[in-house]
């Protein structure tokens, strides 16, 4: 059907951050669908080694948000185009620290957000996913 929106896979410019491909997992880093970008849950992956960067949780969150920015910029979008974020912490005690780091990345007009504590994979202290608008702001 010609009126159907296109669906395409998006991937980070830095191949070290392509976790699903590097670990052979059955998800894509992100999918663009029409005007929206949907990113998979991301963890604190080191952009140089591709390994897990499991330092203090504040630094894990910072690294994950930097990776998210990279992923969005690789697809022609950016953090300023994010509309919705879900942050999953391994420990709800890290909530205040998460908010401090969050403010560094979203100082004005932050996106909508849900945050909760759940069981995470790979020993991650945090996992973050988002929905963003495709393209740059007008």
């Amino acid at each position, binding site marked *: 059907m010609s009126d159907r929106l296109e669906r395409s896979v998006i991937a980070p410019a830095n191949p070290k951050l392509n976790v699903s491909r590097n670990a052979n997992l059955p998800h*894509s880093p992100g999918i663009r669908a029409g005007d929206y970008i949907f990113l998979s849950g991301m963890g604190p992956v080191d952009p140089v080694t591709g390994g897990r960067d499991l330092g203090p949780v504040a630094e894990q969150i910072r690294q994950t948000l930097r990776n998210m920015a990279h992923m969005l910029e690789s697809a022609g979008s950016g953090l300023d185009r994010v509309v919705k974020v879900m942050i999953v912490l391994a420990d709800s005690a890290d909530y205040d620290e998460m908010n401090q780091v969050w403010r560094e990345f979203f100082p004005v007009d932050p996106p909508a957000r849900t945050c909760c504590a759940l069981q995470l994979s790979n020993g991650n202290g945090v996992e973050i*996913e988002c929905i963003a608008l495709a393209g740059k702001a007008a």
Partner: protein
Amino acid sequence: MALEREIIASNHPVLPVSLAVRGGDFVFLSGMTAVDPVAGSVAHGTVAAETRHILTEMARLLEAAGSSLARVVKVNVLIYSMLEYDNMNTVYREFFTVDPPARTVCGAKLIGGHKIEIDCIALR
């Protein structure tokens, strides 16, 4: 002009939710567990069996909405224990073979004795 909101499947057998709602070009599915969508009977089993049950029903629902598994853009998986992550993935791969959707998987306390719950957003 406002986008159209269409209830694709309002017939959840147990809960006061719609199974699938279309909003514009997107189709949103409720979290699905190993429950027969018509009879409401529970089909508890292994993580692999529950994953297969859910994704089989998800494909049916999406097709009823004019979509398909190949049009899914985002999946959320909640699993009762992340120790079962690989058991879920083994079955999951069978259903999403090429260019799989974006996905987040977390371990959570699920309701009703279910081992796994999956929702998705798809393009129609």
